[in-house]
């Protein structure tokens, strides 16, 4: 295995073969599903947190208070989670453009800030209210985790947003933000792929998108058939995984009971 750490003239590292085969299979399934018309029209079940977005923005408008959206401290723009969070941001931004509700977006990463500014500006323009867009409301606050947490806490306790969206990669700051949001009486919709922080969000927020639900969000919100189909492809892959797990378990159990040495083909 040490050989694989040294650059050599081989084009393919054989130890990585299972991943390559796996990747090709996965890509093929997702690609074919995305192109398939009958899969594109798949129906998706409801996800509670997503349904609540419109109400949350509406509530803020009625109370004449802002909406706050923040992607957490843990991610950078390359992370798929951040991309997924941007999809929901588009929805929140176009709603706040229509309702003329202030949208605050503090972030810890300047690259995320530049992308978010583009996304929000575009959403405002698409909704027909380009003049309501304020670049200053989408700002970089600090790269340090608790500098960011302190800054967002300050914004929450002074601007008192009526609705807070905590969607992205969160780390320890999750509960600081969620509890402070709670003291100003905000409705909170959270979602993250950080498994530990999910526990805090479940306890402290009104709605929580758990892991994969966050990624599926763009299928729901955009209604784009190709994206819906890719969500369906995720489901197909889940069935594949379940079948492999069951088959491997039966294989292993049978081998154990009959006391046969066998290839452990499920060990990668």
């Amino acid at each position, binding site marked *: *295995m*040490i050989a*694989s*750490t*040294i*650059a050599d003239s081989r084009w393919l590292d054989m130890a990585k073969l299972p991943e390559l085969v796996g990747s090709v299979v996965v890509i093929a399934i997702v690609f074919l599903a995305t192109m398939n018309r009958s899969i594109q029209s798949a129906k998706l079940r409801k996800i509670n947190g997503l349904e609540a977005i419109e109400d949350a923005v509406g509530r803020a408008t009625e109370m004449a208070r802002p909406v706050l959206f923040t992607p957490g401290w*843990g991610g950078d723009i390359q992370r798929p989670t951040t991309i997924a969070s941007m999809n929901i941001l588009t929805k929140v931004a176009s709603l706040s453009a229509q309702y003329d509700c202030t949208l605050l977006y503090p972030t810890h990463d300047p690259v995320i800030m530049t992308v978010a500014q583009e996304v929000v500006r575009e959403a405002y323009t698409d909704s027909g209210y380009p003049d309501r867009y304020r670049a200053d409301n989408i700002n970089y606050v600090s790269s*340090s*985790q*608790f500098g960011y947490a302190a800054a967002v806490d300050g914004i929450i306790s002074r601007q008192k947003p009526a609705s807070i969206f905590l969607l992205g990669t969160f*780390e*320890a700051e999750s509960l600081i933000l969620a509890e402070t949001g709670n*003291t100003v009486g905000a409705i909170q919709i959270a979602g993250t792929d*950080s*498994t*530990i922080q999910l526990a805090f969000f479940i306890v402290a927020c009104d709605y929580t998108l758990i892991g994969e639900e966050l990624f599926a969000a763009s299928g729901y919100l955009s209604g784009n058939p190709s994206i819906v189909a890719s969500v369906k492809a995720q489901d197909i892959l889940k069935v594949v995984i379940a079948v492999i797990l069951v088959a491997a378990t039966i294989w292993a159990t049978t081998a154990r009971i009959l006391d046969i040495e066998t290839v452990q083909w499920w060990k990668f």
Partner: protein
Amino acid sequence: MTDLRIRRWIFLGLAVIVVLTMLVPVTTKVTVSPYTQRMYDYIDSLPAHSVVMVSFDHDASSQPEIRPLSLCLLRHAFSRGLKMAGVSFQSEGTVIGYRMIEQTAKEFGREYGVDYVYLGFRPQLQAAILQLGESIRGLYAQDYFGTPLDSIPMLVGIDSLAQIAVVLSIADANNTTHWMEYGKARFNVPIIAGVTASMVTSYDPYLSSGQLSAMVGGLRGAAEYERLLNRHGAGQRGMLAQSATHLYLIALILTGNFIFLRARRGKK
């Protein structure tokens, strides 16, 4: 009583309990968990003079929790005659890491450049790990103090993760995951971790899948490790306060439910 006032009383109660228990000079006896034992045995079994890369993957904010644990692990490694190469991929961990490694090296009379070296900080953990797998000098032309790596005796003949016996990631977040996903998966260097207690559940699956060779977590882990090293330290001192706070939290959960259930019965 309003919610905010209840909150303040809860806060005050917590502060009082922690301060009081910390003033009581009693040490509780901790039982060493198999996790901690596994880490101890792992470090104990490394051949003397092998190079351990210590990665300070945590922020300043986690220092209170993780410091006792870092001290234990570094002390153990130095006492075993291992050579340490300190790196940091969290800018805030840089000075902290240096202080930790300097302090413990001094305790054991180790010499800079011969027994340990500190390379300092590089951003973008995953990029940096991939680079380390290729060439340490590609990532660090000089050490923390600006000395070229080629004139450091300890690093003669060492230029990639292949020559590193094990990477010890001292982490408060997902950084150890990157070490596993890039360092272990790609370059097959063993990873061990000293983490904050909150990360223990997250890393469990990696421990059982073998991507992580050993892991010890939190103040409790430090207390256990202190016991294995036969040293009294902050870990053991904090255990009483820790336990008292747990009881306090359980009491809060029960009181909360008592009030809730009584209110619900009242409605019926």
